[in-house]
């Protein structure tokens, strides 16, 4: 799992590449935890490089999302691939998260 980040208009865009499962999810959580620690609580996750999420992966992700929200921020998603979209819908995540078609609209949603 590769993670890159960049700042856009006061929002931190995190690009993930690989599968989010029980093995890689801790790396994602730690990364987000670090961001929150630095005061970056407005996050956008670009999932265009993510081909698969497992149920354990989703659980861990939600933990990270809750952390940003408890600090007044959020984690918004974009670039969701079809297989990942199916799982997000099935797991109810589509109803509790803001999903966007592209990074720009996700970033803009914070203003």
């Amino acid at each position, binding site marked *: 799992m590769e993670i890159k980040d960049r700042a856009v208009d006061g929002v931190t865009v995190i690009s993930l590449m690989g599968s989010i499962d029980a093995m890689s999810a801790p790396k994602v959580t730690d990364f987000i935890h670090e961001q929150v620690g630095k005061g970056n609580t407005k996050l956008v996750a670009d999932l265009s490089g993510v081909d698969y999420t497992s149920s354990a992966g989703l659980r861990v992700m939600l933990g990270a999302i*809750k952390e940003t*929200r408890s600090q*007044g921020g959020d984690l918004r998603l974009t670039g969701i691939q079809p297989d990942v979209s199916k799982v997000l819908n099935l797991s109810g995540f589509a*109803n509790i998260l803001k999903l966007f078609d592209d990074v720009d609209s996700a970033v803009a949603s914070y203003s």
Partner: protein
Amino acid sequence: MGKPRIALVIGSGSVKCAAALGLMKVFEREKINVDMVVGCSGGSIYASLIALGWSVERATDATLKMWTREVTAKRSNRAILQLALPWIFKFDESFGLIDDRLINRRLRDGFEGASFADTKIPLFVTATDLYNGEQTVLSKGLVADAVRASISIPYIFPPHKMNGRFYVDGYQSDPLPIGVAIREGADIIVAMGFESPYQEHVTSLMRYNFQISSVTSNNLLKTNYAFHNLAHHSEIIPILPEFEHPIKLFDTDKLPYVIEEGERATEQQIPFIKSLLA
């Protein structure tokens, strides 16, 4: 991190949802400000009245004017023909047993042309898309339009056409849409929900249908509630009014009692809510 954002979510429950007015009386007294309101089905009526900032008196008046037995009294002639001869009188998605012109007029008059832009706090009304079964959040345009979509009781009122989509009752996809509040960034979520009543005795096909409808919507209510509790980063506070006698679809004469019971149920949770805000 600033002050926690408080959301009020009012689920489906027809006239019982007026208990939310009792909740607002208590909140106003305690100077607890609600930052957003979400409403589903009957709850959308009260969520809208609250979001518009109308007083309890004005909201009660509006309810009494909008919601009477007459709104479901007139059968739709077209529906009668559609049922009898569906191959001649084209049966389509706009089917509803009741002529909805009266309810449409009452809602327009009752909300006095208000739009979402007129609300004092953000308002979200949920309905269910008839074609893809999904919950749709309505937050733009005329309030009366969104409420009409949210209360489209299946078979009774025709599905409501809005923005090129057809909507049925919000409770079909989620009777208590806490997820909307979570998604919109609420911290403390105050949720007022109602279970559908079970039949004492199933003595006819119609009662059987009502029983099944209650079984399914109550299961959806409970499971979603459980999910939202696990998914939310902060507290969800359920306010569950209890009524000594069943409150039926048009029991608007019981409004004062319903509002009072809403106050009582809210009082019970006030100490905890205040401790969260301290």
